[in-house]
């Protein structure tokens, strides 16, 4: 069901001002963590809460923090990943624009937990307004003494720097982000070593998504048990879903994990408009496989969506109605992945190009027999064979589309045109 935790203050335009935020409890958790808790207690609490990475991978945040080596003499860094670019996802931007202090507070606590005195927030370059809001919030936090030297008189120092990117999807991948933050081309790195061991400037680094870090103050204020009372056993807490595409009320909705997809799409989103029929749903951003109308009751948690054959990913739910050609959808997506492939790994660099050429050809009505099989072979040769997940992300929707809508692909090749023509007019 709808549950506003991270979105508690989302409708208050004054929430961006630190006095207003503080009057509603902001930075209370930061004070508590710093004055009453040891870093290892903070990590234990977050680990216990079961908060999972909200950027897409779903890896437990507390476990990730625990990978920071305790005996390393090197400085440690915390990086907040605000390079939101997964098509269908637009939640981090809203958090930054509406409740920046929640993110700053989450970053403070996480930095303290891992022993970092310098943290960065990497905001995608196009997000000029969110960037300005974050800069302002951080400036205010310094003025109040929540950042800077000797915070709350504890002797702990922390600086936060807002960094901006240059419009590259790949920089949402943590190792590419770190290269970009170092002033390099945003190409992903081979792991191991993982960033927790060798990340930014070859020092121990934790990269967490905006939404993940926004959960942290709530966990510290109310405890892991309280957090676990929401959601499901394996997917505790709430999650923000960005609902877009063919729905009456698109928007960002926060629900408890485990809420049925039908509630999000039909109750909150108002369903498919104008009496048209649902055809498919992308549940977790453009990289995740499609769900079909008869899977509308799938529960929105990591396990249930995986069982249904897809992924929760970043929570970008894209609704597609029956006027849509699935080859057209895939053409749009493969164009994106081809454009965003960083070029490091041959299977992804070359493969996404071949796929784009072939799929565009089919969409234009120039497909030939054997194309589908060739596409499947290329997909198989990209999947699992690249340094970062962009290769997998590019092929998963293609494989899913061919599996679920093969007759449309065959029709396209045989009849040199779409089975249903996607001609969408803006109003």
């Amino acid at each position: 069901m709808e549950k506003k935790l991270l979105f508690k203050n989302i409708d208050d335009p004054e929430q961006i001002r630190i006095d207003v935020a503080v009057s509603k409890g902001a930075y209370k958790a930061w004070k508590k963590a710093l004055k009453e808790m040891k870093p290892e207690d903070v990590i234990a609490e977050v680990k216990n809460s079961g908060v999972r990475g909200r950027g897409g991978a779903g890896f437990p945040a507390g476990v990730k923090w625990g990978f920071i080596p305790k005996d390393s003499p090197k400085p440690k860094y915390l990086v907040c990943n605000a390079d939101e670019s997964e098509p269908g996802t637009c939640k981090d931007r809203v958090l930054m624009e509406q409740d920046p202090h929640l993110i700053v507070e989450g970053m403070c606590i996480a930095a303290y937990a891992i022993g970092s005195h310098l943290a960065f927030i990497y905001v995608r370059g196009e997000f000029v307004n969110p960037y300005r809001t974050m800069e302002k919030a951080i400036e205010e936090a310094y003025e109040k003494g929540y950042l800077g030297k000797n915070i709350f008189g504890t002797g702990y120092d922390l600086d936060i720097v807002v960094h901006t990117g240059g419009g590259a999807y790949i920089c949402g991948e943590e190792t590419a982000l770190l290269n970009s933050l170092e002033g390099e081309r945003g190409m992903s790195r081979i792991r191991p070593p993982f960033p927790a061991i060798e990340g930014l400037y070859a020092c121990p680094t934790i990269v967490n998504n905006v939404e993940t870090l926004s959960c942290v103050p709530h966990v510290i204020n109310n405890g892991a048990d309280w957090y676990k009372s929401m959601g499901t056993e394996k997917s505790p807490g709430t999650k923000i879903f960005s609902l877009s595409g063919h729905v009456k009320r698109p928007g960002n909705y926060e629900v408890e994990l485990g809420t049925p997809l039908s509630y999000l799409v039909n109750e909150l989103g108002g369903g498919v408009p104008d009496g048209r029929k649902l055809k498919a749903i992308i549940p977790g951003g453009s990289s995740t496989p499609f769900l079909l109308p008869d899977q509308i009751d799938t529960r929105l948690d990591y396990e249930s969506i995986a069982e249904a054959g897809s992924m929760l990913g970043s929570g970008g739910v894209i609704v597609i109605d029956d006027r849509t050609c699935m080859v057209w959808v895939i053409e749009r997506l493969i164009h994106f992945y081809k454009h965003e492939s960083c070029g490091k790994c041959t299977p992804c660099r070359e493969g996404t190009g071949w796929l784009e050429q072939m799929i565009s050809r089919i969409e234009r009505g120039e497909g030939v027999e054997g194309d589908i099989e060739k596409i499947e072979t290329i997909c198989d040769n990209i999947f699992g064979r690249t340094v970062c997940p962009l290769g997998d992300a590019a092929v998963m929707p293609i494989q899913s589309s061919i599996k679920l809508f093969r007759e449309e692909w065959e029709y396209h090749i045989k009849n040199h045109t779409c089975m249903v023509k996607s001609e969408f007019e803006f109003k």
Partner: protein
Amino acid sequence: MILTDESIKKIKEKMARYPRRKSAVLPALTVAYFQVGHLSEEIYEEISKIIDIPALEIAEASTFYTMFPKKPVGKYLIQVCHNISCALLGADSLISYLEEKLGIKKGETTSDGLFTLISVECLGSCASAPMMQINDKYYEFLTREKVDKILEELRSRA
């Protein structure tokens, strides 16, 4: 010099925040882009002098990032999102409408140098589709009526 004193000051301030100078490359490019509207070899040279990183390394990084135009563009750079969420709500027809209104094709600049029209990948505004970015501002839930008004306002401001 292309970069203004204000831009140079901003770049120096940003540079001071990082443990390593090279991290200031992208912030510097961003400052330059928002001042000039595009990037060039000359700008890389200027940034190189400010942050003491070879111009070649700045160019190397810059050419990776598609947000920065590498050739002059119109005063207003119209970037329409053509990715899936926007496409489902008529991004292609929005692009055609803009082409018609501006009398140019996608990728071109109007003869008065006012508008350049391009289409771009997802801008993270999917739940407010269709949308476009003009310079540093997002315009969302676009309708024909809204587009008319926006263009009119920008023309009158120019």
